């Protein structure tokens, strides 16, 4: 009797999926790790795993269009003579001239100024364009010290000592030769066209004891006027926050691994760091344990996309948030209008991440003058301001529904979690329960 095997569909391995196989083939062909921009692309617990409870019998909502819900925030009240006063608690994160074009930096400054918030320089120094178009400009103090000078330090509104960023905690910057134009090379005192590697550690201090003295030096140079931020990548948020407070920071910025970078190794982006959601409560706990919550302000960044994300971060205890990737999208990054050109680059709108190659069809992550000219900084700034306004309105809508007259009045009790992981990280109850992992017994 003959026997015929019934046909079975081909089955691919979950371990060796298509993306993994493609990466193995790419690595074997080139001998170099994959470099890209942006933040992690993997699915991980995030703000979408949280919900607001809204008002009910026990909570009294505010009228959506009649009763005020304040959004202002003051940053740098601990030591600075001139704290920063912002209309909204959404700031623009540090992104360098070099990784971004000059018109893109100008657009970020224009948009932030229209919205009443701050923008931030990056690894490579301060350009005159961004200073001129940014009412409130935070000057990053990075390990490379490219373009660092006391004149720009004094004309900044705040100083951000960068220890790390969420996309690559423990890693330095990277700007490949394609983007080292004459102007970028001059600002960084580097030969044109080289692959620029920024140091991962500061050259003249090691550890929080030294940082405390470094911060005193920066305050003395600027006559104690400027708020001094300390930015860390999400790694050990409780201890990093506590040590930043000890070092004398006015403001602490914690950047989770959804935060973007101009360029680094994909393996770094995807396998090092903490999700933003996991960073907030430990950082807030450190501030509370030291009696410094709201006295040293906390800014959270990494994957903030909407007013709901803003409201959730603030409810968990942040004073403000910062956006980078979302701001670039508002300017026009990954816009489908450039789909034909994205396809020529072997990608598609929404997936383009080879920012380091300087061929950005949207003209944002490039130093090519023809591409950069595609972004009009005035209309780009307007789009960013519109987006910031929408985020603010969304956050206010949620806050009013929770009965809050200021975004800072949102609290963890306003939130529940949809998943066990999010409940554990945010330390808010699993929906429909009064329990979260780590709290009492199940």
């Amino acid at each position, binding site marked *: 009797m003959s026997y015929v095997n019934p046909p079975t569909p081909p089955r691919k391995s979950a371990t060796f999926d298509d993306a993994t196989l493609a990466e193995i083939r790419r690595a074997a062909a080139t001998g170099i790790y994959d470099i890209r921009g942006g933040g992690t692309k993997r699915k991980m617990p995030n703000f979408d795993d949280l919900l607001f409870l809204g008002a009910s019998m026990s909570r009294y909502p505010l009228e959506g269009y009649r009763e005020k819900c304040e959004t202002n925030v003051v940053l740098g009240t601990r030591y600075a003579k001139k704290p920063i006063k912002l209309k909204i608690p959404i700031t623009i994160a540090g992104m360098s001239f070099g990784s971004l074009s000059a018109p893109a930096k100008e657009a970020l400054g224009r948009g932030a100024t229209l919205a009443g918030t701050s923008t931030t320089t990056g690894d490579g120094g301060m350009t005159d364009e961004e200073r001129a178009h940014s009412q409130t400009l935070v000057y990053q103090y990075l390990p490379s010290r490219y373009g660092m000078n006391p004149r720009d330090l004094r004309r900044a509104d705040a100083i951000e000592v960068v220890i790390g960023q969420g996309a690559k905690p423990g890693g330095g910057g990277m700007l490949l030769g394609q983007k080292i134009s004459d102007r970028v090379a001059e600002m960084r*005192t580097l*030969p044109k066209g080289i692959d620029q*590697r920024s140091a991962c550690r500061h050259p003249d201090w090691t550890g929080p004891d030294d940082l405390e003295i*470094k911060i*005193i*030096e920066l305050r003395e*140079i600027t006559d104690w006027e400027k708020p001094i931020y300390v930015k860390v990548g999400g790694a050990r948020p409780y201890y990093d926050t506590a040590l930043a407070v000890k070092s004398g920071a006015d403001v602490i910025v914690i950047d989770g691994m959804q935060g973007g970078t101009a360029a680094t190794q994909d393996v770094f982006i995807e396998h090092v760091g903490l999700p933003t959601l996991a960073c907030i409560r430990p950082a807030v706990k450190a501030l509370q344990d030291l009696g410094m919550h709201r006295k040293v302000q906390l800014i959270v960044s990494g994957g903030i996309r909407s007013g709901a994300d803003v409201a959730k971060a603030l409810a968990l205890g942040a004073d403000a948030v910062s956006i980078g990737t979302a701001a670039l999208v508002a300017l026009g990054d990954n816009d489908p209008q450039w789909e034909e050109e994205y396809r020529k680059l072997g990608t598609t709108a929404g997936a383009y991440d080879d920012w380091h190659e300087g061929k950005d069809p949207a003209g944002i992550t490039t130093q090519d003058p023809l591409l950069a000219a595609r972004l009009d900084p005035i209309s780009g700034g307007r789009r960013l301001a519109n987006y910031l306004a929408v985020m603010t309105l969304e956050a206010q809508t949620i806050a009013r529904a929770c009965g809050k007259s200021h975004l800072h009045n949102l609290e963890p009790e306003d939130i529940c979690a949809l998943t066990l992981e999010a409940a554990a990280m945010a330390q808010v109850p699993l929906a429909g329960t009064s329990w979260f992992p780590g709290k009492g017994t199940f």
Partner: protein
Amino acid sequence: MPTFDLSISSLRELNTALHQVEEGNNDIHFDILNPRGHHAVAVGIAAHLTVDIKGSVGYYCAGMNDGADIVIHGSAGPGVAENIMSGTVVVEGDASQYAGATGHGGLLVIRGNASSRCGISMKGLDIVVQGNIGHMSAFMAQAGNLVVLGNAGDALGDSIYEARLFVRGRVESLGSDCVEKEMRAEHHEIVADLLRRAGISNVDTAEFRRYGSARKLYNFHVDNADAY
């Protein structure tokens, strides 16, 4: 001549006074007494002052100096003249780690020895060290000149860019991508000029050897992976 005694005056009072000297003021010579290891002494000066510090200082003395001529009549802690833009800083004694770190311009003279990471990430500053320098000096040095009359420690000039290193004595080892290079006539002139500006005489520039970047790591190549 303004005199600040740091056993009486505060650091804030001193630096405020140094920052408030107006153009046209001829009273520009400051004496600082009893520094006793204070940190951040005479930082952020943006005028052509002369400053004499009568004793040893802590971290970051003369940090970000832009135009002043500062003499430390003692030794200096870590980061002396860090990120200096212009002017001169002279340390009569020894200097700790990171002397002249990231300096963009000006001249730093150390009469004694400098510890590790001297001239780290320097971006145009000139440094003259009469004694020895420690390990990892001129790490990622981008521009400027480092002249050492004594010896250099391990890994000199690791990942160096376009800075020039001149060492009269022994070099313990060179870092990644740092190689010895020919001393041409223009290099003898650079060393002679810096020795003159540092007030050092009776030293023959022929005694120096030059080190700089092999430029093999400027653009990534997989065959150099073990050097990164």
